[in-house]
C-alpha cells in the first residue's frame, strides 16, 4: 500500500532523514520506534508533504513525493500530528467537521461512531478546542483525522502523557481502526503497547531504519533493544 524508498529530508542544512525505507501493507498496524529526536515525526511529516521530500513515496502505485499536503490527504492518507494541532477558536464539533474533506464526504467513521468511542467528546462538543484537556485533545485529533476517512493513517505518539487506563483504551481504538481496513503507522515510545498491537515494527536511529521485524523478533533481540531503544 505504501512504499517509502530512500527518503531524505532536511531542515535548513541539517540532514534529518538519511535514506528511510518503509513498507506498509493494507490493514496492518506497523510501529515506528526510536529514541527522541531520531526523525520519526519528520518521517510522518515528509510522507504527508509537510516537509519537502527527496526520494520516493509510492502510495497505491502512485508517486506522491512532491504533492501538496491536501492532495496527499485526498489520496487517502491521514495524519495525526504529535502536536495535535487542535483549532483553539473552534468548538470540538467544528474541529471534527473540518476533518471531513467536504461537507458531503462519506466516511466509514460517522459522528455517532466517534461519540460512541469517546462519549467525553460528545459532552464537550460545544466547548472551544483551546479549553479541553490534553487527553481530550488526543482523542479529538485522532477522531478528526478519522472523519476524513483515510485508508492509511499515521498516528504520532498517541499515548504520550495518558494515564495507563486510557493508554489501554487507545490501543483498542487503534485495533478498531485497523479492523475497519485502515492501515496504521504508529509512532510510539511505549514498547509494551507497540509489541502488543503491531504486526511489524521498525526502529529508527539517527535518520535511518536500523531494525525491521515482527514483535517476536524484537522481543528476542536484546542487543537491538539495548542499542536503539533503551536509555
Amino acid at each position, binding site marked *: 500500500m505504501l512504499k517509502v524508498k530512500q527518503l531524505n529530508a532536511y531542515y535548513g542544512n541539517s540532514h534529518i532523514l538519511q535514506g528511510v525505507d518503509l513498507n506498509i501493507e493494507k490493514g496492518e498496524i506497523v510501529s515506528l520506534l526510536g529514541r527522541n529526536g531520531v526523525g520519526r515525526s519528520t518521517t510522518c511529516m515528509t510522507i504527508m508533504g509537510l516537509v519537502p521530500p527527496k526520494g520516493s513515496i509510492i502510495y497505491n502505485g502512485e508517486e506522491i513525493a512532491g504533492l501538496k499536503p491536501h492532495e496527499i490527504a485526498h489520496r487517502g492518507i491521514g495524519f495525526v*500530528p504529535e502536536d495535535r494541532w487542535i483549532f*483553539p477558536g473552534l468548538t470540538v464539533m467544528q474541529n471534527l467537521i473540518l476533518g471531513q474533506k467536504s461537507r458531503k464526504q462519506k466516511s466509514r467513521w460517522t459522528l455517532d461512531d466517534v461519540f460512541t468511542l469517546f462519549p467525553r467528546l460528545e459532552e464537550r462538543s460545544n466547548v472551544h478546542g483551546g479549553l479541553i484537556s490534553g487527553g481530550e485533545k488526543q482523542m479529538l485529533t485522532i477522531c478528526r483525522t478519522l472523519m476524513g476517512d483515510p485508508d492509511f493513517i499515521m498516528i504520532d505518539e498517541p499515548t504520550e502523557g495518558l494515564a495507563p487506563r486510557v493508554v489501554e483504551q487507545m490501543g483498542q481504538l487503534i485495533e478498531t481502526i485497523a479492523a475497519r481496513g485502515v492501515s496504521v503507522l504508529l509512532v510510539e515510545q511505549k514498547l509494551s503497547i507497540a509489541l502488543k498491537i503491531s504486526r511489524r515494527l521498525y526502529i529508527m536511529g539517527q535518520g535511518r531504519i536500523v531494525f525491521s521485524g515482527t514483535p517476536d523478533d524484537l522481543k528476542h533481540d536484546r542487543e537491538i533493544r539495548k542499542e536503539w531503544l533503551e536509555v
Partner: protein
Amino acid sequence: MVEYLIFSVLNTLVLGMLLFMLSSGLTLIFSMMGVLNFAHASFYMLGAYFGYQITTVAGFWSALIISPLLVGILGAAVERYGLRTVHKYGHVAELLFTLGLFFIIEEGVNLIWGRNAMPNFIPASLDFPLFTLFNSEFSAFRAFMLLISVAIFIGLYLVLTRTRIGLIIQAALTHPEGVNALGHNVPAVFMMVFGGGSALAGLAGVIGGIFLITEPSMALTLGPIVFVVIVVGGMGSLTGAFVASLLLAGLQTFAVGLEYSLVDLLGIIGVTVNADGILRDIWRIQLSHIGPILPYLFMVLMLMFRPKGLLGKREN
C-alpha cells in the same frame, strides 16, 4: 458640550469603522500567512484612485462595486504570483517584497495620476445633511459610510462563523499545516483571504478617498495607523482589531477637539506647575496638537507592557 460629545462619538464610529475595514484584512493576512503586508494601505489607495476614475466614467455606484473587485483581483494575483514565490525565502523576503510593492504602487499612482490630490467629491445623491443637531450637520455621506462598514462587519462575522470556508479560515489562523493535512487547499484559501482583504481595503479606499483625500501620499498617511490598530488590538484578532479601530479613532477624534494644555490637565487633578522656564513650550502644548502622536505613543506603550495586544493570543 453635549453636541461636541454626540458628534465626536459619531465621527469616531465613522473613522473607526473605516479603520476596521482596513485592519480586519491586514490582521487576517498576518496571522494566517505570517506576512506583515506593507502594501495593504496601497490597496486602499488604489481603491480610491480606481473609484475616482470609474466614478468619472460610470458614476459612484458602479465605482463602489467595480473598484473593490479590481483591487481584490489584483491582491489575489499578488499573492498567487508574487508572495507565494517569495515565501520560500522566508519572512524577511516577504516583508521586503510588500515594502517594494508599496513604493511601486505609490510611484505608479504618481505616474498615472500625478502628484496632486484628485477632485474626488461626495456623490450628488449623498451630498446633503442627514440631520442637524444643535448647530451641526451630520452628512448623509458619513451615515452611508457607517452603514456600509457596519454591513461589512456583520457580513464578515457571518462568513467567518457560519460558513465552512469561514471555519477553515479560522482554523488556518493557528494551524495552517494542520488544515492542509486534513485535505483543505490552504494555498487557495490564502489567495482568497489576501484577495478578500485587498478588496476590503479597496472598498475602504473608494469611500475613504472621498471622506479624507485622494492623493499619492494617502497610503503613507493611513498605513501606519492601520499597523497601530492591529498591534494594539492583538495580531490576528478580529475582535481586537475592531476594538482598537474604535479606540484609535476615538483618540484622534476627541483629541482634535480638546484645547487643553498639559498645564490645564494637571490643573484638573490639582497639580499646579510653574509654566515658565525651559520647559515652557512643553507645558503649553495643546492636546489637539499631540493628537497625531497619540496612536504611536499608544502602540509603543502597548508593545512594552502588553506585547500581545488587547485581545491577541500570541506572545511573540
